[in-house]
């Protein structure tokens, strides 16, 4: 994926989060992101790759100051 396409996807998801919160309140955000992740994972059709990306997403959730 090109940088420009990555930016487009970034924008779409940011707007999606705001729409989810607008439509369903604060809980809408996590539900929206979980649904999106599940749908994307199914589209990817590669459980091993999903496991790698889950590990990536779990990394650096908390970052201590250097």
């Amino acid at each position, binding site marked *: 994926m090109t940088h420009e396409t990555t930016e487009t996807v970034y924008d779409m998801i940011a707007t999606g989060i705001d729409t989810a919160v607008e439509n369903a309140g604060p809980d809408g955000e996590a539900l929206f992101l979980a649904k999106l992740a599940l749908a994307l994972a199914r589209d990817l059709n590669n459980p091993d790759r999903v496991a790698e990306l889950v590990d990536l997403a779990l990394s650096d959730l908390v*970052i201590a100051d250097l």
Partner: protein
Amino acid sequence: MRPAGRGEWDSLYFTYPRFDPPDQRDGLTDRAPVVVVGAGPIGMTAALTLARDGVRVVLLDRKTTFNDGSRAICIARSSFHILDAIGALDPFVQNALGWTTGRTFHRGRQILEFHMPDGPDERFRPMYNLQQQYIEQFLWDAVAAEPLIDARWQSEVTAFRQDDSGAVLTVRDPLGDYDLPTDWVLAADGARSALRGMLGLRLQGANYEGRYVIADVRMAHDYPTIRRALFDPASRRGGTVLIHRQPQHIWRIDYQLRADETSDDAMREDAVRQSVAAVLRDIGHDGAWDLEWWSVYSANTLALDDYRAGRVFFIGDSAHIVPIFGVRGLNNGLADAQNIGWKLAHVLTGRADAAILHSYSPERRGATLDVFANATKSTRFMTPPTLGWTRMRDAALSLAHREDWAGALANPRQMTPYTYADSALTLPDDPAFAAGPKPGALTADPALPDGSHLSQHLAGVVVLSFGQTDLPADVVALPLPARGPVADAFGATDGTAYVLRPDRHVAARFHRATAHDITRALARLAGDFG
């Protein structure tokens, strides 16, 4: 603002001159071909562009000296070409700090290093840092040496009227009021433009919530001229900080205010000192430092719907306000000044029909809208406006510790010159080209075989002729070789011609030019759109 005990103009390193109103009152009311309102960087650049092309200019400014503080500090390569064209380049080259690299940090860890396009054959670096008061000083030195510019300080425009035959500005200075008749007015009177208000015009667009304090400190700090951006640093939890090196051991620190910090509280000297000290701890500076100056700003994307109102052209901040991320405010203002400057000069000296003036607003407003598109993305990353943008920014920063593609999302998209592809002055492209600057784009500036650069040979409208070109009998072209690196930079072959505008943008190009082609392109630049 300056620390307690120091006056508004009491800088640690710069002596602000004081300019008197005109003491010679004879001739103040003589009709001027052009009046430029505002002697900041944009107004002075416009005045110099006109004067160097043979047009007499009255330059008015209500202040007694330059703008206070370092303000716009980043000058892009394209702006150095503008400074070159107005004969003001040398002190900028001698004093500004060139840079190519930026580094972005998240919680102290570097997540991105970007390099702007540069190379040994480039005449100028992609970006330079220089405090605005030096920018104004160096431009003023050129203005003061220019006999066709009549600069009048402490001279405020208090009223304005215009009709089909011209315009009249009522000017007030400490010695009295007078009416100044003129043909054309360039409004370079800044973000709070009085002329804009007198014409009942309003900027339209968006305001962003993100506010920053900008503070200059003097310190002996050992770090190269590299732009640093700190996301979520210990000094500004949840916020962002930008750090730039400037000449004279002055460092610019921009730090974002929290939503619960009022601008008034943040502007107090003790608050600024505390915030700056925290940022300096973040970057490992434990030596002494002096506070020089500070101010506050918020990110906006605002512009006039039309940069022309009758005989008035708006240039710089009077026409558009852009976020600072990507350094587009000053640089786009300078491009405005050069754009309307050469067009007015060509009209007033009989080289073009007034029809070319219609191209100013579409060209420069197009550039502003392009800036908005880029600056809006930068601003959303620096100061996310909603939960969605905050989450995505934080996700990108977290991922960037392991994934380079995520770090690239933090690239601030530095300013690039706009391409006037759709302008009435630009002819459609010749599809035979496989390379080279397209019509509307800023020209390439390759090194020539003698070691000079192409830009050093350009003045006014120029035809570049590669090899043997079929030229109109009355056209003198700049001859260039049909083979080699210069030809390659233009995608040229034997018989290729480029027609360049005075602002060094490509008006037209022909892979195998005919005299008719070149005549047509030159006629268009003179306002013949038939």
